């Protein structure tokens, strides 16, 4: 076993593992050692249980695509995250923690708005939102926190566009969303914000039933609520779920991506001067691979015995599938620890793999393509306003990122 690991008294390495202080964009060094020396091994988590840790790309894809593993967090052996042990404020209607066929039935109710043509039709609106946000930032004082100025508001405004939230309701919507996605919010406060948002979405669904538009809520209202497939409340909860899922993730990719690019100026220049949309799109895939912000591993539990990597995972054993290190597997991505926006990174697993793969990925791609291709072009002199080693990274966050990113130009 490598020396860089922290061992519990029983000998298993402890999870999560710390990143190296000097390499904020790289997965923990201990994970890298495990990938090469013990790719399928047990780790000890906060509650004393010892799920399997999966580190290789090949095993990650095989297992996430395997019907013999379950996403049902209520099953014994499922490796729960520390936070989920307390009552949490997440909407009870969540197909994220269900298995097929129920998972597929619910997920298919909301796939329509994420079809590529529908998402592509949003591109001009996303471009306008990004340009307006940059205009506002340029008109204000500097230095400014890029998280507050761009990274958080852009996904919020885009999701309003997608859901079909009228402009006059922006304030209520923005305020409650902000409360919800802030890590520091007290539980009572976020429960109140969640209720306010669900109530609001329910009222909005009623008006969409009367006057449907070309948006996600109209789609759910006319095709699912009107037909009795979903109640108004269930539909509203689904709306809230989509809202939350696409928020923190995209916001962190915008801020952390900018942070990484400012520290890799050659890559930033390549991206800024990308000759066409295809090059930009390819660069986005590499940033998704390299940053892999879902750093807590995907959690599953085995339903049957599974042989993998020379080990036998028994029915009932928990699994943590560490996509961040899978995306740095040298067997798949040569020189994996280098950010290289010219490489073909398409096969990354940043959105997961298997039937639970991120539903919002087309929207995330669109937003990141527009932000990255616009921001550095419009502000070529964009620079960190603090020393790189002063940036505060979200080591303990549900999603990895930066708490703030002071920039100037």
């Amino acid at each position, binding site marked *: 076993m490598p020396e860089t690991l922290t061992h519990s008294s029983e000998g298993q390495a402890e999870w999560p593992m710390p990143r190296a202080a000097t390499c904020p964009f790289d997965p923990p060094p201990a994970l890298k050692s495990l990938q090469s020396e013990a790719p399928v091994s047990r780790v000890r988590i906060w509650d004393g249980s010892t799920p399997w840790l999966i580190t290789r790309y090949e095993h990650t894809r095989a297992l*996430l695509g395997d019907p013999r593993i379950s996403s049902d967090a209520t099953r014994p052996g499922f490796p729960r995250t520390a936070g989920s042990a307390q009552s949490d404020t997440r909407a009870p209607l969540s197909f994220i923690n269900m298995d097929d066929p129920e998972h597929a039935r619910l997920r298919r109710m909301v796939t329509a708005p994420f*079809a590529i043509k529908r998402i592509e039709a949003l591109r001009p609106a996303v471009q306008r939102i990004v340009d307006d946000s940059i205009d506002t930032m340029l008109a204000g004082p500097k230095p400014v926190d890029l998280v507050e100025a761009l990274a958080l508001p852009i996904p919020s405004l885009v999701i309003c566009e997608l859901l079909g939230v009228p402009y006059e309701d922006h304030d209520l919507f923005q305020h409650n969303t902000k409360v919800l996605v802030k890590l520091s919010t007290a539980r009572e406060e976020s429960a109140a914000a969640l209720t306010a948002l669900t109530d609001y979405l329910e009222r909005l669904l009623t008006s969409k039933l009367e006057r449907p538009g070309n948006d996600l809520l109209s789609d759910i209202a006319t095709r699912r609520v009107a037909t009795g497939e979903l109640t108004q409340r269930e539909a509203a909860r689904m709306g809230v779920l989509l809202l939350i899922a696409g928020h923190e993730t995209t916001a962190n990719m915008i801020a952390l991506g900018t942070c990484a690019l400012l520290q890799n100026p050659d890559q930033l220049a390549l991206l800024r001067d990308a000759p066409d949309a295809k090059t930009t799109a390819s660069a986005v895939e590499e940033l998704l691979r390299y940053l892999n912000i879902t750093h807590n591993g995907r959690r599953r539990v085995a339903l049957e015995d599974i042989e993998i990597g020379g080990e036998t995972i028994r029915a009932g054993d928990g699994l943590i599938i560490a996509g961040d290190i899978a995306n740095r597997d040298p067997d798949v991505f040569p020189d994996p620890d280098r950010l290289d926006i010219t490489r073909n990174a398409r096969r990354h697993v940043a*959105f997961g793999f*298997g039937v639970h793969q991120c539903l919002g990925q087309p929207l995330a791609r669109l937003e990141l393509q527009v932000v990255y291709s616009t921001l550095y072009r419009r502000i070529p002199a964009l620079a960190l306003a603090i020393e790189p080693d002063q940036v505060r990274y979200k080591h303990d966050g549900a999603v990895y990122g930066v708490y703030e990113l002071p920039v100037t130009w």
Partner: protein
Amino acid sequence: MHVEVDQPKCVASGQCVMLAPGVFDQDDDGIVELLDADPAPEHHDDVRESAAVCPAAAIRLTEK
């Protein structure tokens, strides 16, 4: 090359449509639709890539 799609398996990730729009499309719910079961050679690489990144293994290829 011969292509088959398994619609019940599809999870609407849309990656095949982005990679090989001449071969794959999506219905109103984002579920894969096959436009060309026997694509011309210039599409083969994109179709192979589509099959490789499909999260639900809903694309089946037979190389002739």
